[in-house]
């Protein structure tokens, strides 16, 4: 019947095995140059705890730490996201929160089911990311839920279509486990920039 359903159940099975393998492997994994085999979670180490000497110092140290954390999360994320999008599309929605939304060239896609459907019908892709910028989102906006703004730009070729320049933004939110921080997409905004190609 519906193509993605049968894939999804297989994906469930796959995910179980991968997750099991992943947790066995993670003890040895750092964000360093170690070669990683395929992963479908964006993970960074937990923030080290700082002993604040003065309130002023604490503020600047904390901010710098958040900036570093944001950069680390953004880099890790971008590597995994676009590779998954290109090579393992079925697994892409694992990077999204259940209630995540995507605005794709003005089309709104809301919730995991809709996202699965959307990515299933999107033609296969080849992404090339040329620019990556990120910022830690201020806690006043997020009610202290650690969040990172990720901004990317580059080119993409969807099968059957010409190449486009694109801009994309993400909000990544952190979910800390005892051993590390897992980042998931809360929101995703994607746009072609058509004028760049003639």
């Amino acid at each position, binding site marked *: 019947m519906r193509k993605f359903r049968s894939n999804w159940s297989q994906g469930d099975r796959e995910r179980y095995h991968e997750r099991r393998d992943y947790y066995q492997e993670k003890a040895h994994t750092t964000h360093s140059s170690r070669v990683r085999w395929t992963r479908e979670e964006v993970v960074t180490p937990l923030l080290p705890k700082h002993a604040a000497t003065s309130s002023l110092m604490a503020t600047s140290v904390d901010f710098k730490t958040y900036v570093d954390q944001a950069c680390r999360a953004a880099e890790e994320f971008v590597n995994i996201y676009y590779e998954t999008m290109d090579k393992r599309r079925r697994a892409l929605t694992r990077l999204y929160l259940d209630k995540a939304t995507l605005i794709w060239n003005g089309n709104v896609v809301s919730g995991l*089911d809709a996202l699965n459907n959307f990515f299933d019908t999107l033609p296969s892709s080849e992404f090339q990311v040329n620019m990556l910028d990120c910022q830690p989102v201020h806690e006043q*906006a*997020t009610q202290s839920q650690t969040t990172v703004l990720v901004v990317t730009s580059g080119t993409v070729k969807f099968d059957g279509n010409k190449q486009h320049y694109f801009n994309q933004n993400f909000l990544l939110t952190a979910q800390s486990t005892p051993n590390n921080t897992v980042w998931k997409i809360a929101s995703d905004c994607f*746009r072609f920039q058509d004028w*760049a190609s*003639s």
Partner: protein
Amino acid sequence: TSLPSGHTMGHSDQAVQRRARCWDMYQRRFSSVSQPVNLGMHSSSHQQQDGDAAMQGAHVESPVRYTPYAISPSHRRGSFLKQDQTHVNMEREQKPPERRVEVNRPHETLGSWFKITIPFGIKYSEKWLLNLIQNKCSVFFIPVEFHYEKMNATFFVENASIASALKNVSGKIWDEDNEKISIFVCPDGIPDSVQREPKSEKVEQVKLAVNQQQALDIQKLPVYSDFMTCDTKMVRNPRKGMAASLHVHEENIPKVMSSGEMDKWKGIEPGEKCMDRSPVCTTFLDNSSNINSILELFPKLLCLDGQQSPGPTLCGLEAHKRLPTCKGSFFGSEMLKNLVLQFLQQYYLIYDSGDRQGLLGAYHDEACFSLSISFNPGDSALSILFKYFKDNRNIKMLQDPYLRGQLLKHTKCDIVDFLSALPKTQHDLSSILVDMWYQTKWMLCFSVNGVFKEVEGQSQGSVLAFTRTFIATPGSNSSLCIVNDELFLRGASHQRTQSALFTLVPTPFSSFMPAFSQEQQQMVPS
């Protein structure tokens, strides 16, 4: 507790789709004895004096299975389909182009039709919304031609008692943000798929395909080509027919608050057969003149670039994956749209004024800002980007954590100092595209795409394109307070530069601005 999003409708959904597929197959089987598609008369009455008109007519004897992506967009074919689209648009007067055909019904009408509209339904996925309504509705209904019109979701039902039952659901369902969902019902005409003769089912499908082709072609154009002053001179495009059709297209897109649109909501026509005589149609659109004026300032935001692509299974194109057609700006709601537009208007007024210190009032004390740039081959005047190069924060290229930290501006004073050092600009607000992509009670995230001109310095007159992402919290005076600001710059292509509109729009700014705080008033240059 609200339903999980994306919950399927179960049997009824599948039954509808299965029926649609069967109907498709039936049509294909019995109409594929290639009767020429009945577009001949359309094209002949609307031939552009292109010289290619005769040839173009001959092209359209295609079988039902139309695969726009398999066809290389040759000029001739593109022009012809453009013309047909022109005709379609004019024929439909104020209606937007055909959207997805959910169910292909036989042409005989079985009852009276009602149009069901969910305001701001564009926020919800079709499945989720229909499921929610069905769960609350006392009778089973089959939605026909479900589609989104501007901010609304809409579909047809065939029966007055069903329409009445749906009306009763209004205000009794909530979305996941606990906002009430309203349902409006109008005894308004017959869905287009039902209206047609069965033999023009092919016309229907080719028209759908035509719409797809048009959407494809639109994507080839610069996104911000200026519809308002579009003429063949300004749009340097070999397909002359396209400029004309775009012009028509723009005229036929109704403005959100036009009187024509509001008339639809004004009540039952006299003499219309309807079981329920109570005023089911109420005007829900706000009549505020402020909103109208704001929307005039941002005409681009009213244009939806195309329509939703029909689901592949329903148009006999199962095998094909397709890109959804690109649409215009997206706002979560009317209220938020006004909020964001007002904010942008004020922000860029100060930004372009020559003194950016006034922006201090717009930023949070601990706001962040960063700038990034990208060089694309084919950009004209790349040299104007060089001055931004030293502040370019591209962490893909930049590994040094110290520099990564330095290039992120922190605190509003640092940010405004940095912005003040950038060249004086003139932004073209009439051409912006806005995506509001995340909102909670405490924050609003939106991205603005547009162009601006540098109006001083060595690169005076150069045009750059930008994407600016703001994250803002509710501020004082019902304005926004920026906590994160990311500015991405790129060159504008030659074509875009030519068609950018840079005349200052004479608008009564003062009528939109909410009262500035004391501090802000001192900051704004007189």
